[in-house]
């Protein structure tokens, strides 16, 4: 069983709280605000009554309770790190403990996500998985920009919408599903088609733009504003079993209009005309979300200045240096 820092704080007098960490960890992350007893891994099993076991990240104690079949024992989710964050800043980040434990993310990375605003232009095949993954990962604020309605033909590839949402505004249906995933996420909805007149105002205060549109003109327009406002864009696009992803316009790096100057297609490559398999938007949208997370947290191994081309038919990828 697990207990979050927020719940423990309310019920701490009901438990014996056992800190099983090393002296060094106790010194670096003291459990302020909790009366604890210190115990080794084995001794803690014999403590009578309801107890909460605390390790550094909440993973050792979670495994220990299951392995040793310890009765009346709870593992503190996120461990001492999550408790210290909760005690100092009144923020319970414990639900993200499995990604906070990644050295590349950590508490500081998670806080960067929480303090970030991402704007998604287009809530279709790409926009849905991007929004879903970003909310699940702990992005603090999302802006959803789209004026479209949910149609039946969207449902096979746009997982935020169900039959009950058909004919509803996409942004409203999406907001409802996303708030269920994380009630604390702040979501702003803009029921407009992104264009030259409204684009700049819509993207003010945005940290990262997600290009999840479905036409070249919108992509060109986004690029101009992204460049002007110096806000990076995570670009994604689909064709049948394939997709492209790149992070554009970071400190002067290439933008869409440099990557595809005066670009044209024969008009037969949209999802409606060319077709798209339901998994492809999820794959490409999740790669966009992954790149957005890396960009926000500051993980340097990313797609800035590179174009990823992915073919889901044969799983061939090509990463091209721009």
């Amino acid at each position, binding site marked *: 069983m697990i207990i979050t820092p927020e719940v423990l704080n309310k019920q701490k007098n009901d438990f014996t709280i056992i800190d099983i960490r090393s002296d060094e960890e106790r010194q670096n992350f003291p459990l302020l605000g909790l009366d604890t007893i210190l115990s080794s891994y084995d001794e803690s099993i014999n403590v009578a009554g309801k107890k909460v076991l605390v390790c550094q990240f909440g993973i050792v104690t979670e495994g220990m309770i299951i392995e040793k079949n310890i009765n009346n024992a709870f593992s503190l989710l996120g461990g001492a790190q999550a408790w210290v964050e909760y005690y100092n800043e009144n923020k319970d980040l414990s639900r993200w403990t499995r990604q906070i434990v990644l050295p590349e993310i950590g508490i500081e990375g998670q806080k960067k996500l929480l303090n970030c605003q991402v704007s998604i232009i287009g809530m279709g095949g*790409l926009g849905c998985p991007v929004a879903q993954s970003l909310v699940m990962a702990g992005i603090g604020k999302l802006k959803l920009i789209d004026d479209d309605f949910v149609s039946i033909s969207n449902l096979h590839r746009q997982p935020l919408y169900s039959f009950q949402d058909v004919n509803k505004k996409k942004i409203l249906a999406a907001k409802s599903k996303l708030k269920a995933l994380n009630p604390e996420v702040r979501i702003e909805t803009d029921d407009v088609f992104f264009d030259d007149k409204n684009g700049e105002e819509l993207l003010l205060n945005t940290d990262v733009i997600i290009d999840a*549109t479905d036409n*070249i003109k919108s992509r060109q327009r986004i690029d101009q504003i992204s460049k002007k406002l110096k806000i990076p864009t995570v670009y994604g696009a689909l*064709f049948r079993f394939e997709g492209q992803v790149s992070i554009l316009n970071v400190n002067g790096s290439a933008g869409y209009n440099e990557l595809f100057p005066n670009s*044209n*297609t*024969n*008009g037969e490559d949209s999802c409606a005309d060319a077709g798209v398999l339901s998994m492809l938007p999820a794959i490409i949208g999740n790669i966009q979300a992954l790149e957005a997370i890396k960009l926000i947290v500051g993980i340097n191994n990313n797609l800035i200045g590179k174009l990823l081309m992915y*073919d889901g038919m044969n799983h061939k990828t090509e990463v091209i*240096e721009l």
Partner: protein
Amino acid sequence: MINIKVKCFSQVKYALGADELTFQLDENTTSVDLEKIIRKKAGKKLNNVSLRIAINKKYQKEEIVLQNGDEVVFIPPVQGG
């Protein structure tokens, strides 16, 4: 003669009907020459599709003379979302 491998994605793959093709070309063949060969091979299927090019995983803005063993990717813009 030089041997060139072309990796095919998106409209190029569908137009040529292959994931990968190899070409034996005259020395001094350029990237623009190869694009013309590709377009001719595709018939009308790449009409109005603008293509960018990467050689050995590097995007090329200018025409470049191909070297034996080069790997070429033509990059069409795709718009689906």
